[in-house]
């Protein structure tokens, strides 16, 4: 790398960071937003959701729709693996993710287990194309989930020790509803 180029790039990045900082300060909402969103089954805790703001390519309502759909996905998923009930899955997921989750529930059922999902989200919308109806949600969430007995719902084993999992979920708008279509785990 040439030194001149590096300095120019550093300046550009510093300027970018400074502008971002000013934008962020301007967008502050008085500290009402929490630093994460927690999903827990079967009775999700009260959540505080970061509400995305406008960008040149999308409206706040669309970003809010995606964020809410993503959290809704987790709530339905958490209920499904806890109650071993697949009936509501198609409301929040489709395609490979739906097939995958059904297999997951089937596997739990065969082992006589269910899962209590306790996760604390640390997510953001990485990409959003309202025209194509696609969105990408990146989540580096803390996982404290554990298995329970399928019948008694008593804990089996121990909760995950707060491991951070890095997942990216791909959402599509299907019949007017944002649904998780696929995902990928970074690492693991």
């Amino acid at each position, binding site marked *: 790398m040439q030194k001149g180029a590096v300095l120019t790039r550093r300046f550009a990045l510093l300027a970018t960071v400074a502008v971002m900082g000013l934008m962020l300060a301007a967008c502050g909402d008085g500290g009402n937003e929490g630093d994460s969103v927690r999903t827990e089954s079967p009775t999700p805790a009260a959540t505080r959701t970061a509400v995305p703001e406008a960008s040149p390519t999308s409206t706040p309502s669309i970003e809010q729709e995606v964020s809410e759909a993503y959290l809704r996905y987790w709530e339905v998923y958490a209920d499904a693996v806890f109650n071993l009930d697949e009936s509501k899955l198609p409301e929040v997921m489709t395609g490979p993710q739906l097939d995958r989750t059904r297999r997951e529930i089937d596997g739990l059922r065969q082992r006589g287990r269910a899962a209590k999902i306790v996760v604390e989200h640390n997510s*953001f919308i990485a990409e959003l194309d309202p025209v194509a109806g696609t969105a990408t949600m990146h989540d580096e969430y803390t996982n404290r989930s554990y298995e329970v007995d399928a019948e008694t719902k008593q804990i089996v*084993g121990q909760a*995950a020790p707060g491991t951070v999992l890095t997942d990216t979920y791909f959402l599509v708008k299907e019949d007017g509803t944002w649904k998780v279509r*696929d995902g990928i*785990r970074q690492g693991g």
Partner: protein
Amino acid sequence: MESPRWHSTRRLIAPAVALLLIAATIVGLPPELARADDGYDPNPDLPHADISVESHGDGVTIYIAVSDSSPGSSGDSSSSDGVGGSGGWSCSADVMNIGVGMREWFEREAPLHPGQAPWIVRCDNGFFGVVWLSTDVGPADIQIVVVRGDAVDPAAMAAALLDHVPVPDITIGVNPATGLVAVPSWFWIEGYDGSPIVASDTLGGVTVEVEITPTGYRWYFGDGAALETTSLGQPYPQPSDIRHTYEQSSSVGGSFAATVEIAFSARYRVDGGAWQPLDPITRSFTAAYPVQQLQSILTGQ
């Protein structure tokens, strides 16, 4: 064989488990809670891919290690420079444009990565990842390499690395500079102190270190004689223990090929784990050494 570290760790674990069981009994925790288990990962069947970053003099290389379950994993391994690429995967890396929607995430993560900025890595088959790179790095400095994670063979990496271990440029020291028949010549190794030599490489998130250590030095003096030592010899004027006395001169204008062959034991380890043996290697270094016959001149009285 268990290592001393594991022994000491186990000594600590056993009382800790006992205390946990006692505590669970006292406070009335469910007995299941006292059992060791590792919880439950949501979406356990999600496709996965490892992503790692290696910095070097020319910039950074982003390795994406894919498995059979990764999206588009049927594609061949490939590499691309920053944007575009070839082969089964076409990937690009772009500095993350921090929109308001990712503000909170950025504010939480940025302090954990001082001097770095987040980049998004995308591949046309659906792979998506986030990496933090130095703020010095620009798109032209980034190379993306996709490897099959299940094809990363540490032993093969070690074997390949062994061929490129940076053995110093060794020279043979000898005194006198021109040998004399029937006069001992002293030899020694210059440019190397005999310490272990280490090389490492990272591929697909797997770091392999190779270490070679000299086990012996075999000297060939060029006249058919040989000597095996564990010593590097001593540079003149110190008396070297590596000595040879030539019984004949080299041809007129010519020289003997004095050679030292260094035998190295070799071993490797993966991600800082236990060392594992590799086949030993040898490296040879040669110097031309002229040897003359002393001429006696008789003078009459």
